[in-house]
Every structure is written in C-alpha cells, then in structure tokens.
C-alpha cells in the first residue's frame, strides 16, 4: 500500500533521520531499508524533497513540542538546565531531548497530556545523575505533572461546597456535623523537599539553590474558585486527615487542629481551625458535602 509507505517515510525523515548532512543516496538507503516495499517511483518522489525543507518540519515539530513541555514543566526544566552542564559537561539542549523522547517514548495520541506524561517519565529515566545530585527534581517533576492534571482534568459533577460562609445561617452544631471529602480534581503529595519554597526561591533569584536539606513536607493540590490549579503546604495532621478512607466532619477536623495547637485557648483555636479549614476549601483540597 504505497500511501502508508509515503506517510511512514515522511515520519522517518522528520522524526528519525538526521537530515543535517542528508544526500539522496543516504536517504535512499535509509528508506529502502526501513520500507522495503517502496517502489522506485515512490522513492524517487521522496528523494526529490529537499533536505532543508524537511528541516523546516523538524524545527516546527520539535520546536512546538519543546514549547509544550516548557509550559508544563517550567521549573523542572529550569533545574535540568541549571545543573546539566555540571553533571554532563555541556549545555542542556531541550530540542535534542525532545528528539530523544520521540525515540524512547513515542507520542501515541493527539492529547498533549500524554506527551507531557511521557516527558515526565523520560526525565526520571534520563536525568538520574541530576536527580542523584538534586533529589528534589524528581518531586518537582511529579508536582508539575500533577498540577497539569488538575488544570486539565474533566470537571466532576460533584456538588461539594468550598465556602464555609454558605452555612452562615446554620446552627453551629449543624455546621460541625457536615462531612467533607477530597474533591476529584485534587491531589496530596508527601515530599522530602519544600517544593513551594524552592519555586519561590527560583522566582525571586532566577536560580535554584544547590544544597537543600531533606525533611518531610506535605502538599495539597486542588482547584480554586476560578477552577485554576493551586497548591499549599499542609500540616502532617491535615495530610493524614485528607488521606483517611472514611468521611470526616468539620468537628473532627477542628479536634485534630486543637490536638496540634494545644497551646492556644479553645475559643481562639476554634476560630483558627475554621480559618484554616476555609483556606483548605478555597484551595480545593477539601470540599463539604451538602
């Protein structure tokens, strides 16, 4: 079937072959080896295509894809770019990385989310030496991938409420008995590095710190009122609270809050608990079942 071979040949010429030093003989050998059913006439058509014109497609394909990952993994790519020369002795070339990505994890659908998932896996597999030196890179990649998923995920038809003020006319006891759950489009991360602080440091200094102590951090990722992805640092008890399999009430959250804030008097602690809970709700990390 010549049409399929034509198209496959173009895929090979654009994605696989190095046309920088192309000549018709090398192209003839490449295509006839990979697509033995191509006829002489079809091969002649394909050999007539100037290498510099194929190069335009290479640039638009790989350039377009590098823009996608730069939008989705802004911070992770900046980490790789910063530490790549130290680890590999040369500058980081994103276009070369995208070419390599195509070979190791071909993009199989028309969904950019799949391409970005491939890039995440590719970085973990390929930049092990950087991750060894700057272990937060693996967590940053995961964080950015999850933020992307939260940004893009289909809307759920849940009727969760994200504002305590909606219950302003209810009795306190009624409010406290309301149950909560983690929304579909939210996610919890347990990390060894304070990713939000690392990102903030980069935003201020345009560089990542080199020595970062590992501890234990918890993050909640969700959608805010405008349905944009947002994240905040969680206390350990909040992470535990959100990961429990059963539905818990506002009262149970307040009790857990009191337990770790025992130095604050009860009235003030209650107000602080509700204020904090409102924050978790507005970050879409928890929602109230009405």
């Amino acid at each position, binding site marked *: *079937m*010549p*049409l*399929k071979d*034509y*198209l*496959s040949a*173009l*895929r090979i010429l*654009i*994605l696989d072959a190095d046309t920088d030093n192309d000549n018709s003989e090398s192209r003839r050998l490449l295509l006839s080896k990979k697509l033995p059913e191509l006829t002489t*006439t*079809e091969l002649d*058509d*394909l050999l*007539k*295509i*100037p290498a510099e*014109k*194929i190069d*335009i*497609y290479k640039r*638009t*394909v790989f350039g*377009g*894809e590098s823009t996608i990952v730069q939008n989705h993994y802004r911070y992770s790519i900046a980490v790789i770019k910063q530490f790549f020369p130290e680890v590999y002795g040369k500058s980081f070339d994103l276009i070369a990385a995208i070419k390599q990505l*195509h070979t190791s994890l*071909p*993009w*199989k*659908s*028309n*969904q*950019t*989310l799949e*391409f970005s998932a491939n890039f995440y896996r590719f970085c973990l597999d390929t930049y092990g030496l950087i991750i060894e030196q700057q272990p937060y890179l693996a967590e940053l990649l995961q964080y950015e991938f999850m933020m992307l998923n*939260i*940004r*893009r*995920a*289909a*809307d*759920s038809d849940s009727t969760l409420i994200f504002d305590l003020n909606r219950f302003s006319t209810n009795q306190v006891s009624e409010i406290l008995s309301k149950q909560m759950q983690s929304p579909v*489009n939210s996610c919890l991360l347990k990390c060894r590095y304070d990713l939000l602080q690392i990102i903030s440091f980069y935003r201020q200094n345009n560089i990542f710190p080199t020595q970062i102590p590992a501890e234990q951090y918890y993050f909640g990722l969700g*959608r805010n009122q*405008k*349905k*944009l*992805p947002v994240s905040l640092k969680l206390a350990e008890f909040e992470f535990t609270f959100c990961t429990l399999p059963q539905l818990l009430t506002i009262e149970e959250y307040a009790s857990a809050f009191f337990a770790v804030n025992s130095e604050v008097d009860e009235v003030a602690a209650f107000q602080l608990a509700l204020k904090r809970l409102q924050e978790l709700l507005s970050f879409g990390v928890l929602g109230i079942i009405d």
Partner: protein
Amino acid sequence: MKNFNLPVFGAGAGLRHSHFEEIIRTKPAFDWFEVITENFINYGGWARECLSEINKFYPLIAHGVGLSVGSTDPLDLVFLKKLKTFAEEINSPWVSDHLCFTMVDHTNLNELIPLPFTREAVNNCAERIKEIQQITGKPFLVENVTRYITVSDREMDEAQFISSVLEQADCGLLLDLTNIYLNSQYHNFDPYEFLNKIPLQRVAQIHLAGSRINDRGEIIDAHNAPVFPEVWDLLKFTLKTTGPTSILIEWDNDLPPLDTLLKEVEICRAVLKEVCS
C-alpha cells in the same frame, strides 16, 4: 450552492486562552470565535468554564488540528464521539480539520504534514471524511494546508487533489488564503489560477493570517503577524465568487492585544462590504 449551504457568521478570530478573561469582561465586537477542539475535549477547569461563558455571547465553531484526515492509521472513534458531543455542547454549526496527516504508524508528529497528491490519498481522505461526517453528525470542512514540500504530484497537482477530495467526500472547504499565498511563494505558482481551479462554491469559511520573517530569513506559516497585503487581495478575489463568507483571523504566536485582532477583523468587514454589498 453557496457557502456549502452553511450559515454565514461575519468576521471572527481564533479564541486563545490569554484573551479569555478580557473577552468575558469587555465583550469586544467579534462576530464569532473559532475553538481548537483538542484544547477542550477531555478537559475541564478554568478554560472550559471560560468557554461556556464566552459561548453565551458569541457563536463558536469547532476547528481541529489532530484528526489526521489523510492518515492510514484508523480514525480515533472515541475522540470523534467526543468531538460530536463537544460540537453539540458549543452549538458549532460545522466542524473542520486539515487536509493532511498528523499521525502515522500510531505516532503523533504534532504538525500538519502534506499528503502525496495521488488517487489513493484522495480515496482514503474521502472515505475518512464521510466517516467523520457520519459520526459527528455535522457538516465537515477540510482546510488546505501550508506545505513546504511536495511529496508527490505525478498523478495530479494540489488544486486537483483538493477538488477531488471535496467532490468525492461531498464536504465543505475551509479555504486558508494565507496557505495558498505561501504555497504559491514556496512552489512558484499563480494563486489566482489556483483559486480558479478549486470549487469555491464549497467554501464555508476562510482563514487569514500573517507571518514575520524568522531569524533564518524564512517566512513560515507562524500566524504571528497581521495578514499579508497580498492575502487581502486574494480575499477580495475570492469573495467575488463566494459572496459573503465567514472569515477568521488566525493569530497563534506572539499573541497581540485584542485591539490588534479587532483591527484585522474590521478590515475583513470593510472588504466584505466593499466586495459583497
């Protein structure tokens, strides 16, 4: 038959995320917007919310970049069913995509790659377009693409290829005049002769765009500048045959303020008035 018997919406622009909030806030004088389907199908969140809001005030038309109309891979039936649902949700009167391929051997090239102008490619495209129209339940328009290469023109030229697909699939044409202009520059042909060879009565929508010379001294189809003056002339020529048609300004890179897009849209309106009134 005019406009492939489809409604005419006036002058619009491609809807881009960075303009969403301003459009919702200021409701600028665009007649309609075109929506890239792959940016919305399967997705929710802020962008989808904005789209619903914008759709309350403007007609939206679904335009795809990933159906891979000319591919030999099977059509993505799951995606097509979602496209049907999406087109119904936004009340799109038709759906469109490009006369090219973007996937082959189950690999996405993420670019509009031209097809060989062969009888086999015509048959393949026509069969697939019929299936797309059947599944989506909407009229389908194919868009002529920019092509930096000629894969094969032994059996027919591009104008014959486009015409054959349109007739055999019985679909509409999304006529990209910028692509014709650029192709005429790349492949040294007369764009007016080209327009005379294709069935303009099937044109239901027109795309216009411009590009700056890049740092290699090339003009590629970057959609990052005002419409080329030569393309306005091609528009006037085309409208003499098609009559009033839905026209769209495409601007995807180095996105300007909405006012700049509106100025382009106002030129479209002036041309429509000059030629068609």
